[in-house]
């Protein structure tokens, strides 16, 4: 298994600003994933981040809005840019192979 930490755990932000969320894993992993969980909803994959290459975004998510960095095999960041109240969600990172994924505790974001 993998131990995943995220920072910040929660934040309240003003609309129009940006927030960068950090994800740290206790072991080297090839693929990292970023999910969004809107209030009362299920999880939706935002993008897949491989070290050394551009992130792959899912339909409905774009790099300008959710830029991702993956500088090494244990760390990734997701930025939520030019935020609006609709971005209020829990953002989770996960790691794993095809047979299982482990999730971080999430970052709870409220945009006012």
């Amino acid at each position, binding site marked *: 298994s993998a131990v995943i930490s995220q920072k910040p755990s929660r934040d309240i932000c003003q609309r129009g600003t940006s927030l960068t969320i950090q994800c740290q894993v206790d072991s080297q992993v090839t693929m990292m994933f970023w999910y969004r969980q809107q209030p009362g*909803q*299920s999880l939706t994959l935002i993008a*897949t981040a491989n070290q050394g290459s551009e992130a792959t975004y899912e339909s409905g998510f774009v790099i300008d809005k959710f830029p991702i960095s993956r500088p090494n095999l244990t760390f990734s960041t997701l930025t939520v840019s030019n935020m609006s109240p609709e971005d209020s969600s829990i953002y989770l990172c996960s790691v794993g192979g*095809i047979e299982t994924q482990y*999730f971080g505790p999430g970052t709870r974001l409220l945009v006012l």
Partner: protein
Amino acid sequence: AQSVTQLDSQVPVFEEAPVELRCNYSSSVSVYLFWYVQYPNQGLQLLLKYLSGSTLVKGINGFEAEFNKSQTSFHLRKPSVHISDTAEYFCAVSRASRGATNKLIFGTGTLLAVQP
């Protein structure tokens, strides 16, 4: 493409009663199936998974699930629930193909509300 349907958005049950949370999936290829639990204000924790082999899978906290290929279902069961089982439960599916991305497709979740 794969999809997951969790038929019940909320399941109320009394403590020590049995419970079944339903999950159906749709896929044209072989899949792996998962159940995750999310306790209030926490991240997701893997309960159990089906990859291959025995269709009855046992997980943590006394939960089990049965893979039924003909009915494309993967229902989660527990013979006797506790108050501490109150949480949101998510069923998820991924393609079981070499070289496929590891993308998980989640259902909409079922809130298990255990009452004393």
